[in-house]
């Protein structure tokens, strides 16, 4: 029987993170797609980015070094970063 638990976990994480990004960036959740540029297209500045990070850490119970934020341009890259942290910190 295929194990769908990991992909459903990932999907749930994606939905929660998208909701956080949409709330803090004050955009519609539909605009938060993988290839969207967080700063350039969603207008997220440094403080918003920090708030997004802090909120995701709290809700997903993970820790991300702040300096990794600078490496992230797109929503998809941020999701990957969170996913990696979640797996290594499990």
């Amino acid at each position, binding site marked *: 029987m295929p194990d769908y638990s990991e992909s459903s976990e990932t999907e749930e994480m994606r939905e929660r993170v998208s909701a956080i990004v949409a709330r803090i960036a004050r955009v519609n959740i539909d605009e938060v797609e993988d290839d969207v540029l967080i700063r*350039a297209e969603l*207008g997220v500045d440094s403080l918003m980015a920090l*708030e997004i990070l802090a909120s995701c850490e*709290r809700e997903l119970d993970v820790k991300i070094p702040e300096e990794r934020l600078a490496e992230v341009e797109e929503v998809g890259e941020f999701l990957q970063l969170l996913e990696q942290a979640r797996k290594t910190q499990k």
Partner: protein
Amino acid sequence: MSELREVVREALSDWGEYPCMIAVNASGEATEYSASTIKSSVDAQAHFFRDIGVRRGTVVLMFRESSVDFVVSLLALFDVGAIPVPVKSEYRSFELDSIIDNARPDVFLAEEDHLALLAPHLSGRSVIAHSKGRLRIVQRADVSGIRDDIPPTVASINYTYRGYGYPLGALLPAAPYIDGARKLGERIDARAGERLLSCLPMANIVTLVGCVFLPLLRRLTAVVVTSIHPGRILGALRTYDIAHVIAVPEVYALWARATRDDQSFPKLRALTSGGSTLSPSLQSALIGAFGVDVLNGYGLTEYTPISCNRPGNAREGTIGPLFDNVTCRIDRANGNEILVKVPGVAHGYYRGGAETGEAFVEGWFRTGDRGSFENDHLIFESEIKRTMKINGAMVDLEEVKRAIEADPAVQSAEVNRESGRIVARIVPSGPVSEERESVKALRARMKERIAPYKVPATILFS
């Protein structure tokens, strides 16, 4: 400058049995520094600087990250009688070229990994690199002392913007560091032995006066953190028994949104806010979240502080009563511009005769801000100059325009503030096949050229 030296030495020599500074790193580990350790470190660095020729009047560019080491270097330069030029570590080639061209520093004191940004300017200068608490002489050159065009009472040159499109070097005497810090400390009732959180960039005058000299002269322990991550800060407020914080409204708002009802901050006494507008709604939210006085104040690079609310009598929507050394009037003929007169205001702008003449008129300093009075409380209304605050940091819209127009892909640009954001409308210099990719590439180039926080939130093709 000798007054600064004496005041610092006296403060460090007469400390209680508690830390002078505490550094908290990104991992949350804390290192305590006694006053005698700080004093020894200042003496050692002053000796190091003298050895390479730094002396009274030497202009030294400080391109350093905020840290206890920054404070030690600053105090050591003051001890020698040199003239530090603190520069934000976020600055890139556009700002650095302007500042270096204007200040013509003899010495660069920079983080090791910032040296690449200074590469075009290294020739003919002494260069000192800082890394992990150590200084290294990268190269030596002849170092000059007192300059004919800098008054002998100048303690530092601090760069600011007034909408001209380039930074201006305010020639600051010791007064803001001594009188300004003492008066602010009295106003917010900062007491010896208490702890004050320092989380803003130390190149800012607000941080230098409020988070370096205020704790030093009033003998508070300065707790220096490198992150404003709300989780880390809220923990630090409790762990380190913080009584006072000085920060900008946007940072306070970030923290307030992260507080929970079950959190308390038993030692916290006041949040002092400056740098940009504190709305009444945010003020109420902060009082609700933290349960302490929120003291909104106002200061200028040319002199800080100008006004600040008092504990127990903070009035929403105002920037508080003036300090007793400040005279202020509202120029109704010029859009209600706030004019101030204060002993110890900057001498002017270095090598900026025209700009100095426009700003300093008949003993008054034209702030470039609009305001009014409500009884004895000053109210900030808006900026007249073509600048705006992004998270408390001043952005000169003309400088952003120049930086964009310096790009080969751009023929011309209009930069304005719209709904609290910087918006650029550009005319490209050639055909654009993929607008999204072009904007992405332009934004990446801009971040190499100018401080990232100045890059427009929105870039549109006309």
